[in-house]
């Protein structure tokens, strides 16, 4: 794996995790499963769980413990209002970044 791809994925992971949590309340294992359904993403627990812990520490996400009918008790993550504001901000910036990339690529 090229180093630059690894670095790019690392940078994107927090953004993608926030977007997943913006859509629904979910737990870490499911986030890993979901991200790994995309060929371009190859994530493991050592990358996702520290991000979730950090989001929780920084007040962007909150955890709710709940029993599960088909497995162990789950730790469900959801976004706080601060987290939702961060996602909106990040999405806005991502659109701008994407636009810039497109413009640069079309000129070269």
């Amino acid at each position, binding site marked *: 794996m090229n180093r630059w791809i690894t670095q790019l994925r*690392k940078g994107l992971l927090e953004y993608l995790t926030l977007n997943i949590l913006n859509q629904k309340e979910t*737990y*870490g*294992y499911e986030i*890993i499963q979901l991200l790994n359904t995309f060929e371009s993403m190859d994530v*493991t*627990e*050592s990358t996702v*769980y*520290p991000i*979730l*812990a*950090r989001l*929780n*520490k*920084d007040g962007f996400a909150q*955890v709710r413990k709940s029993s599960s009918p088909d*497995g*162990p*008790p*789950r*730790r469900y993550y959801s976004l706080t209002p601060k987290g939702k504001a961060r996602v909106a901000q990040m999405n806005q910036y991502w659109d701008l970044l994407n636009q810039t990339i497109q413009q640069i690529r079309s000129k070269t």
Partner: protein
Amino acid sequence: MNELTAIESRINQYLDAVREQISGLSPDEVDNIIDDLREHIDTALLAHGEQPTPENVEAVLAEMDAPASFAPDLDETTEVVPKVSRTAILGAVILPLGILMAIVTLMPVSSATFSAVDGVTSSNVPESIWWRWPLQVTILLLGIISPFATTILGFVSISQIRASKGKLIGKPLALIDALFYPILVFDGLLIAFLFVMIAAIPDGYLALTEGVTMLSYMLVIIINVIIGVIAWHKIR
């Protein structure tokens, strides 16, 4: 029972190894990661069969990241909280000592003040006064060092803040440290020059003298502001 204990022990062994790798994180983060990992292991074990066995546990742990993978890269994971430059703060602490020296040395307290008038000699200096001499000497020494130290610390902190790429803040403070005494000296020279010019005005032109004096003060203030603005734009 022994099998379950062995399974728990193996899982805890893995979790402890991870805990060791992430010990630099906050306790809440460590607990979150460990709890998520425990849930992950339990979920993965269920996928291997209803009842966990030592073999299944080994298979699940083998599929998971090695504990060393959890070691955080602090440069990437920690959002840098900028700190105020300590050098700039030190400069600001030393800065008033020069002014204090000027005030203290101008205080009319000396043995000469007493000796002639009150008959006080060096052998019978009043108790309430004796401590002033060591204090004055200390303040004098610190006061002499203060302008140089403050100015140097100011310039050093400006370069440190600029090189820190956002990790250090406090440019305004650093700028005050760097420019306070040089501007004070410049102002002193400028005022002295202007007073020489004012002194050249013949007697009897009171209104002109007052006007020129007022203009001189305004000129000094304007020059100070211009120097401050230019310096600020240079270091931004």
